[in-house]
């Protein structure tokens, strides 16, 4: 009986140790944020590449059955992979945000895409970006942050990294 208890105690400690080890490795990988959401497009397109958290969606996106438009969203920068970004809060315009990124590109948008299906506040996106926005999109822009200073970036590629 005692032997059984010792064996159980040993196994429990071992299991917990192994579990902590796994969590440690996982957290360390998350902390780097290096590989999550990475693919060929996001790592090569645009002049800036970053991982950022979508802070909010200020209103329901307008329908785009009548208009194509870009919608400016506010992000908190988690990690800059390429290029230079000032500040940790930035504004990024997404083309026709009601559409999944995989099917959003059309003859007027230039190259845009990604794996993101739907925009949700709090989600973390890995994105390839360009700026200034007006050089990449000549069409309607909805900017609920009008009046707040800051560069407006154009999202070329948007991948979901984690929720």
């Amino acid at each position: 009986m005692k032997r059984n208890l010792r064996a159980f105690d040993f196994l429990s400690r071992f299991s917990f140790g192994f579990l902590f080890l796994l969590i440690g490795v996982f957290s360390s990988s998350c902390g780097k944020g290096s590989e999550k959401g990475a693919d060929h497009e996001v790592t090569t397109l645009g002049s800036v590449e970053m991982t950022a958290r979508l802070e909010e969606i200020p209103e329901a996106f307008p329908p785009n059955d009548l208009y194509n438009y870009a919608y400016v969203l506010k992000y908190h920068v988690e990690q800059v992979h390429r290029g230079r970004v000032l500040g940790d809060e930035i504004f990024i315009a997404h083309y026709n945000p009601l559409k999944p990124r995989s099917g959003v590109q059309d003859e007027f948008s230039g190259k845009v895409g990604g794996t993101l299906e739907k925009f949700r506040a709090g989600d973390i996106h890995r994105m390839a970006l360009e700026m200034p926005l007006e050089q990449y999109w000549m069409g309607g822009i909805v900017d609920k942050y009008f009046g707040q200073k800051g560069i407006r970036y154009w999202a070329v590629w948007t991948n979901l990294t984690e929720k």
Partner: protein
Amino acid sequence: MPGRLLIQMFVLFRLAATATAFAQPSSHDPRVDQLAKEVRYKGWIVYSARTDKDDWDLFLIRPNGSSRRSITNTSEFSEMGGRFSSDGKRLLYRRLPKGSTFAHDKWGIQGQLIIANSDGTNPVIIGGMGEFPWASWSPDGKQIACLDKDGIKIYELATKKEVRRMDRKGIYQQFFWSPDGKWFCGPANQYGQGWGVVRMNINTGVVNSVSETKSCCTPDWFPDSRHIVYSYRPSNQEVIDNGEMARRAGQKLEHGWTQLWMADAEGKGSLVYGEDGCHIYGGAISPDSQYVLFTRSYEEDLKVMGMVAHPLGSKKRGAPMALMRLSDAPTIGGESKALRKLHPRTKDGPLLQLPECWEPHWTYADIGIKR
């Protein structure tokens, strides 16, 4: 006694007939006949519309709807966006291969720029596909101003050389040079949370908002270069039919209806025409500023709303065009309970219904067509 019954029946019959007459649309409104007579010989309107061959051609009509003729008549191409030069002698437009989808808000960057005589003869290709985007006549017809991501560019037509370049300052489409040559107008970003109509001083590049900075577009100049007509969809429109009209049109309840507005250069705006259940686009002013043309959406088909010509989405020839006197503004069409609450004092002048079309433009010049 039978005589009395007969009289009662006659009175009832008359009452019923009168009620029916009021319920009918005003197709026999004598004011409409008078309006048609008044504009009969006031120049020509050019517009694009779908043909029986399933392409889009440019057509000319008299402003009363008579003397309609196709002036491009090409079966391998579609033509759109016709604009007369200020002397009325020439016409610029864009031409796409047949079967192309042209976009209501991007047509100025699609296809090739063509300049022809106003009767459609002698069409000359000015550039390749997508070149000279949003080309707009200078007042003397010797230059065109174009709009692309790099800015506003002015070209000499004779040499096609760029003679000036300016920052576009957020203007992005439906770009027009004023008749006096001093201004540009167009919808623009950067002046509010959404897009609105602005004008730009050509000498200084200074821009001022002419409309609300949300959901205003498709502007065009009045001949005085001091006023602009445009489409505007005000926010928070009241839904008083439980959303039935929106459901019929297949749009969200909160979307609302686009109306035709005008504003002076400093941005004091007023309603020209509105109708709950319809979107109003394509505003174009007559050369003497007495009349306005516009297009109305079909209730059931937003793909061919006043501004949308979507060959893949609909088989209609365009959107119904209408003409009204500007002195009758504001006019509200239909029952429009919500809009009438906001604008209780309207003139409700006559509307002359014209063919289905897209992007009409008007000249009073003699363009060499007799009839």
